[in-house]
């Protein structure tokens, strides 16, 4: 696997030289491999949103470098427009950014701006609508008649239609019900699998992050606290809790069992895995006794 995103001493200060000066991102060095499904967690104000806005050049760092596919995105030879096509960014509550009068036109906005032929635009719209589970007849409807969850999917499809190699989403499932969350997360995963893309997503739901990601980036005070696999990250329960985060409920219960002397081996952070480990434990102890 090769590195697709790399930052080098990335620092960003808001309102530089004013009384409101605030360093939101401090000396961040990360390397994200191709194909990763990376969750970004951190409490409000930890720098998550500021960091991701650097990755497609919406914000220019105060100091440091960002490399996408090995290219320094602020190098004079690099066109930032190309970077924005390569790195798609979906903001929080993207359904508020929908403006066209049909779902088709809204999803087509991005690829059209990229200069593709009508046929290609059509192919991309249909394919991304399919990925997010929108029926073909929905494409002709006004996006404003749709439910909140459907509108959210239209907005996400609009970015997917640009077929970015790197898809970044800021809290894509905030405010949705459990099934809606599950669906959108599965669709994001599908995009990544179909397009061999890399996905970064910010979430406040530790349970979602635990189930859906391959790696987790933990931000704290503008810096990187750690970047590791879910079991390794959620193995640091007390540190996460101290910084205002949490571990999934199931992990908290398993930690209490551990404290009471019952050691189910392995770091447990999903319900299915917990059930499996409990059964294994019972089997082992039954055969012993």
């Amino acid at each position, binding site marked *: 696997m090769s590195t697709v995103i790399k930052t080098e001493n990335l620092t960003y200060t808001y309102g530089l030289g004013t009384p409101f000066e605030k360093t939101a991102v401090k000396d961040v060095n990360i390397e994200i491999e191709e194909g990763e499904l990376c969750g970004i967690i951190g409490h409000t104000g930890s720098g998550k949103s500021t960091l991701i806005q650097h990755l497609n050049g919406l914000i220019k760092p105060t100091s440091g470098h960002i490399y996408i596919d090995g290219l320094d995105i602020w190098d004079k030879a690099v066109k930032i427009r190309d970077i924005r096509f390569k790195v798609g960014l979906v903001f929080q509550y993207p359904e508020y950014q929908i403006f066209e009068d049909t779902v088709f036109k809204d999803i087509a906005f991005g690829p059209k701006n990229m200069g593709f032929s009508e046929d290609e635009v059509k192919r991309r719209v249909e394919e991304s609508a399919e990925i997010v589970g929108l029926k073909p007849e929905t494409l002709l409807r006004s996006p404003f008649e749709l439910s909140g969850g459907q509108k959210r999917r239209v907005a996400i499809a609009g970015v997917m239609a640009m077929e970015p190699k790197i898809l970044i989403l800021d809290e894509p499932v905030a405010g949705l019900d459990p099934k809606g969350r599950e669906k959108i997360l599965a669709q994001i995963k599908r995009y990544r699998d179909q397009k061999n893309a890399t996905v970064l997503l910010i979430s*406040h739901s530790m349970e979602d992050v635990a189930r859906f990601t391959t790696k987790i980036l933990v931000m704290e005070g503008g810096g990187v606290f750690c970047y590791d696999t879910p079991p390794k990250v959620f193995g640091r329960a007390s540190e996460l809790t101290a910084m205002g985060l949490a571990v999934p409920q199931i992990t908290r219960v398993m930690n209490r069992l551990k404290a009471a002397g019952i050691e189910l081996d392995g770091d447990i952070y999903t*319900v299915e895995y917990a059930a499996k480990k409990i059964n294994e434990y019972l089997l082992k102890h039954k055969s012993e006794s």
Partner: protein
Amino acid sequence: MENIIEIKDVTFRYQSEEETSTSVNVLEHINLNIKKGEFVAVLGHNGSGKSTLAKLCNAILTPTSGVVKSYGYDTADEDKLFDIRRKIGMVFQNPDNQLVATVVEEDVAFGLENIGVPTDKMRVRVDEALKAVDMYEYRGHAPHKLSGGQKQRVAIAGIIAMKPECIVLDEPTAMLDPRGREEVINTVRMLNRDFGITIVLITHYMEEAAQADRIIVIDGGQVLLDGKPEDVFSKVTLLKSVGLDVPQVTELMFILHEQGLDTDTHIISEDMAAEALLKLLK
């Protein structure tokens, strides 16, 4: 206990500009009572009608047919709007849409100014409200510099300064990080426990709903389940079929039970789960 909100055979449909057959009933023939001092959580998938139900409680919306009585007042009676809203306060999802002033304490005082509370009394009530939500030390701060959880607590302070008897919260934690969620939920529980304020909490977080006295599940505009959290959450398959979920600990007990172990599926909290699992594994 007396009923403070009585919903009788209520049907609600949003009126579209061109009244056509496409407008559907959001709520259909709902009957519900909320008792004084209860902590009720309302669950339902997006579009199930739960926010509509909340807005019917304090007359932001009035029923298409049927009657809602809040504190004995018919919510369709416009002369009683003021009385109803003095009794029932509402907190919404997005804290940024609810704060109006540039200083925290002025924001909390906003409602009091509107109802003409004298300055000296206002001072006392603002301070009390800010202390209740543990935001007193931030009284001189600018609201936009607070965290999401802090902003939401300021919004709650603005409501409790009005001394309501009931607070309806529509997904107050949807935009917050884990600590912010915990701060808000602890505040809500405290208001219920220590101040006897009736709470109606709409949420998508099952762990939050598990802390209520009673859970109402709305689906397809109707009441699907209404009962104690442990009873409601024990219906794992039914809840999942309507797009909802159960707390992780309940799901674990359910899976183990399906696999033939003798586990109680009425377990809804970490404490209960840890205890049950220790018994099982020791």
